[in-house]
């Protein structure tokens, strides 16, 4: 699960990278042991895996000179660069004349920040999983979460729950925060489309938003309309719901749609 979160967060960042540098054709991230961590939407996993395989072989042959830190392959149409960033490698393909200064800056700043964020999320999830594993079933529900669980269990058995999705909390701000619906959260539009396509004839009218601490609330939802936050792994939650959840900006929550 955490691996999926990592890949989703990193892929979003790589797609943004591609938007900032339109001269970039492909960008993907390799782990130190040559596994594909994430790739942008223009890169197929097959392409990335082939490059990763070739790169692994080259690294093996170059080991007598030390670990490979950077590689640059120039062709007469495009170039490929693979640079080590922390314990990963960032590979990108761009065309001659691309703004290399910006590309380097993004590689050295944006990617480490994204990796840090993904690892933080990973740690939170691991912590949650360990916490759940340690607690005996009878003690699993504390008083506050008991109330919430009751609220959640009010859902009738006829209701079907779709898989959980994880998002990072972004409070509803601006004019929408003032005049918007206080019982409605705004979910990534691609996720809403996915829910609709999964159960075309039945619509998920509600979602259950749950924090890693176990507090949950059932509320209405709408797809995000703001392109500045849409598709970035965020969920817009009004202050009222945040108070109930005891959550703040940057916290990780799971969102589970419920169809009736």
């Amino acid at each position, binding site marked *: 699960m955490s691996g999926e979160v990592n890949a989703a967060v990193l892929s979003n960042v790589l797609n943004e990278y591609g938007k900032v540098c339109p001269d970039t054709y492909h960008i993907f991230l390799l782990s130190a042991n040559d596994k594909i961590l994430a790739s942008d939407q223009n890169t197929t996993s097959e392409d990335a895996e082939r*490059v990763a395989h070739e790169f692994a072989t080259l690294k093996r042959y170059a080991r007598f000179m*030390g670990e490979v830190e950077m590689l640059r*392959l*120039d*062709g007469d149409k495009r170039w490929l660069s693979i640079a080590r960033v922390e314990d990963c490698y960032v590979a990108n393909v761009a065309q001659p004349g691309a703004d290399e200064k910006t590309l380097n800056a993004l590689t050295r700043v944006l990617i480490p920040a994204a990796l840090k964020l993904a690892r933080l999320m990973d740690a939170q999830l691991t912590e949650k999983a360990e916490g759940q594993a340690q607690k005996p079933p009878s003690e699993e529900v504390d008083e506050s979460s008991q109330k919430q669980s009751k609220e959640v269990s009010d859902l009738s058995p006829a209701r079907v729950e779709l898989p959980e999705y994880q998002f990072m909390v972004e409070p509803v701000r601006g004019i929408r925060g003032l005049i918007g619906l206080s019982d409605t959260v705004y979910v990534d539009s691609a996720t809403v489309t996915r829910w609709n396509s999964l159960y075309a004839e039945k619509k998920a009218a509600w979602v259950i938003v749950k924090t890693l601490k176990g507090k949950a609330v059932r509320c209405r939802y709408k797809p995000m309309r703001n392109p500045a936050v849409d598709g970035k792994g965020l969920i817009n939650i009004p202050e009222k719901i945040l108070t109930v959840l005891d959550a703040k900006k940057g916290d990780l929550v799971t969102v589970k749609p419920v169809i009736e």
Partner: protein
Amino acid sequence: MVKKKREQTGNSAIMLQDEPTVHAKPSEALQRALEDISSRPDVAGYILRTGATATVKLKTQANLTDYALLSSEMQDFAEKNAEKLALGKATSLLVETENAKALLLLNDAGSISIFMAKTTDHTEILPALTT
């Protein structure tokens, strides 16, 4: 049947030649440029491949096999990935490691791999070999 001939030139240059061979002989200007480059204290040496011939000149023979294998692998990497990623015709490949740099230049006649210290500015070397 391929017969191998080994010829020693100077202290460290080794020419490995497979016969029969049909290849373009490197120009005198290129050979002179390579001699100048390899005489730099921060350059470990070079491997020049033309057709089926490889000329290896390294200051130390300790890692001769490693350098030869790396040179071959770099050429392989450049050709395969240039095709896969639609880079066009591969012209150069630079590999920078913790301790050193390897630069591969490709052209129709063959390839040149130059091994140098990490601190060497490879862009200073390029003009002499590409003109």
